[in-house]
């Protein structure tokens, strides 16, 4: 019933866009009304404007802005109209400022196209992030753009702040890379970024680059809202890390929270609050089912009531902790329990935090978010290679085993690629290990940016990588990996004013014909060996007559 038809979603999205666009004007009018509020009937107009904002903002995804407008609305009747009313005036002024801030932050919930229409545009998962480069040095700008493109970003170059402004008006980029010094002035970059922020309805992350590593430049960059500051010459692997950090926010969103609470209404309230903050939730009213749900839902955190029928939250936590797989899973209790003794006891047997009811929405969201993020980070550290952030050897094998059996169950093809950087030892010997690490990281970046959603990349060891390509026939895998090979070879590394590039070789095997994970790995390894023997910098496929 509540399924969203694609055209409906796009219509709603259009309406949301319009609301966002008109919001600044609307707030301006409210401000103006406020300034004349003591004049005659202006109070009623002001009230009506604020009231309608309170009623509509949430519908367009601005929940907090709506709440804030509501708060202001509640204060208005108390205005006596006399200027003696300093307290309420002050509070409303503050509230109006808050409205501006919340508007600038953009909607908390962006209307999404419905599931079916997302599926039909398979490219949307692979949407390339758009980076604007503001740099007056034309050759440096072009070079930067080219490097960004190698790593799967779309980059557009602008040589002046005016050109940048015009472009942002057309399309807002995912991030801005700006030189601090421009012909317009020695802090023209930060100035341009600050101007953009003022007019923008959504945050544009900014990374500054500067030829001078001076306190003044850095301060200017910070004041203009720069997320990061890099000195020239640009270290690209550092830049890529920064870009990942500033636009990779979607990785951290959507924490999965399991709410265990026997009071249905309360559970739904907590779930709604957390979902408004961008998390996913699952509600469980019966603690006896918790282990079943954990296995399927794999939450990042459990929010649990202490007093429930059947068993207490503390007992449930102990049962959860009996399972080694859940040793680190954060458990946060919610209770009206005030006695410190009881709270400590609850924590002693396996809880991580204790939140007291009633709890404000902000407090709940913050407490849950911090713990869930920490859990994600730790899990990532344990499962991933520390240099590249790709899966490590052990987790690659686990994933491959799962993918192979899934492919067989669904009778769909699967390709597996072993990939090795050519003559890597000589890179290390010639340029040193830090440069070698940069090469490894850049290949990892390339893999994670260029592969499709669902593909899995891992660092197999040393300079060796592995890629799992579900639903991919060996010929298609060849096209994909050979493309990557060309892109990787085109990346140039700078070291001591010397430039060099590196290549890789790859071997591909698939299932069918292989049916077992071990056989698949061996076949890919053989194919890799063949590519190396044939002169490197090439991709080869397993052959039937090998043996």
């Amino acid at each position, binding site marked *: 019933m*509540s399924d969203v038809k694609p055209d409906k979603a796009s219509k709603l999205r259009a*309406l949301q866009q319009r*609301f966002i666009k*008109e919001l600044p004007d609307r707030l301006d009018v409210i401000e103006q009304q406020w300034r004349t509020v003591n004049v005659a009937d202006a109070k009623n107009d002001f009230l009506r404007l604020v009231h309608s904002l309170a*009623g*509509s903002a949430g*519908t367009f995804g601005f*929940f907090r802005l709506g709440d804030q407008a509501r708060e202001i*609305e509640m204060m208005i009747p108390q205005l006596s109209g006399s200027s003696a009313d300093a307290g309420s005036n002050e509070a409303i002024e503050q509230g109006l400022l808050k409205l501006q801030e919340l508007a600038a932050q953009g909607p908390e919930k962006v209307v999404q196209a419905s599931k079916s229409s997302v599926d039909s545009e398979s490219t949307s998962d692979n949407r390339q992030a758009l980076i604007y480069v503001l740099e007056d040095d034309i050759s440096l700008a072009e070079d930067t753009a080219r490097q960004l493109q190698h790593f799967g970003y779309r980059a557009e170059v602008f040589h002046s702040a005016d050109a940048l402004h015009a472009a942002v008006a057309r399309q807002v980029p995912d991030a801005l890379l700006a030189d601090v010094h421009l012909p317009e002035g020695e802090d023209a970059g930060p100035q341009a970024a600050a101007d953009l922020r003022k007019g923008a309805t959504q945050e544009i992350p900014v990374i500054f680059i500067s030829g001078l590593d001076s306190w003044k430049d850095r301060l200017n960059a910070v004041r203009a809202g720069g997320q990061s500051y890099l000195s020239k010459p640009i270290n690209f692997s550092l830049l890529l890390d920064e870009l990942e950090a500033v636009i990779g926010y979607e990785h951290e969103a959507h924490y999965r929270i399991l709410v265990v609470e026997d009071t249905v209404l309360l559970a739904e309230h907590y779930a709604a609050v957390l979902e408004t903050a961008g998390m996913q939730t699952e509600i469980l009213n019966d603690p006896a089912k918790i282990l079943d749900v954990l296995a399927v839902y794999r939450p990042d955190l459990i929010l649990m009531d202490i007093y429930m029928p059947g068993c207490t939250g503390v007992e449930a936590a102990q049962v959860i902790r009996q399972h080694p797989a859940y040793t680190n899973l954060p458990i946060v209790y919610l209770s009206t329990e005030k006695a410190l003794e009881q709270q400590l006891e609850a924590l002693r047997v396996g809880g991580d935090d204790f939140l007291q009811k009633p709890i404000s929405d902000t407090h709940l969201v913050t407490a849950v978010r911090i713990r869930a993020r920490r859990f994600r980070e730790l899990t990532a550290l344990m499962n991933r290679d520390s240099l590249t952030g790709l899966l490590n050897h052990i987790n690659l094998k686990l994933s491959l085993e799962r993918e192979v059996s899934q492919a067989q169950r669904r009778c769909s093809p699967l390709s597996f690629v072993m990939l090795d950087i050519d003559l890597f030892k000589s890179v290390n010997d010639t340029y040193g290990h830090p440069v070698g690490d940069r090469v490894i990281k850049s290949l990892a970046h390339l893999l994670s940016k260029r592969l499709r959603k669902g593909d899995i990349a891992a660092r197999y060891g040393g300079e060796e990588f592995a890629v799992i390509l579900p639903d991919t026939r060996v010929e298609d895998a060849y096209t994909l990996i050979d493309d990557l090979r060309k892109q990787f070879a085109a990346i140039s590394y700078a070291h001591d004013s010397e430039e060099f590039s590196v290549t890789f070789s790859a071997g591909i095997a698939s299932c069918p014909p292989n049916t077992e994970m071990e056989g698949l790995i061996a076949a890919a390894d053989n194919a890799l060996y063949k590519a190396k023997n044939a002169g490197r910098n090439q991709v080869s496929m397993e052959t039937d007559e090998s043996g």
Partner: protein
Amino acid sequence: MGDVISVLYIEDEADIREVAEFALEDEGFVLTPCVSGQEALDKAEALTPDLILLDVMMPGMDGPTTLSRLRELPQLADTPAIFMTAKVQASEVGQYMAMGALGVISKPFDPMTLADEIRTLLE
């Protein structure tokens, strides 16, 4: 989904009106939108809607006044009415119910579930 439900819809705010219109129109509702209580009164003579859906706070004639004026028309005397308002306080809800409203939908409403919400009230 049953028969089409005709709605006399009164809301002064253009963007909200638009959201509600498209949120309901695919769901088996046919709306006669009005931007003010006065427009509703002008149009209502010729209408026999299944439902009156109206905003509480509007410039000029507010929602409760509009409803009581509409109720003076014989064909609308018993038509189910639902208020939509940003300010839902228990005392107010009671007051609207006493005026013969079927229920109150609080704003901001979720466009994805508005149709279901109304249908639930009508059941």
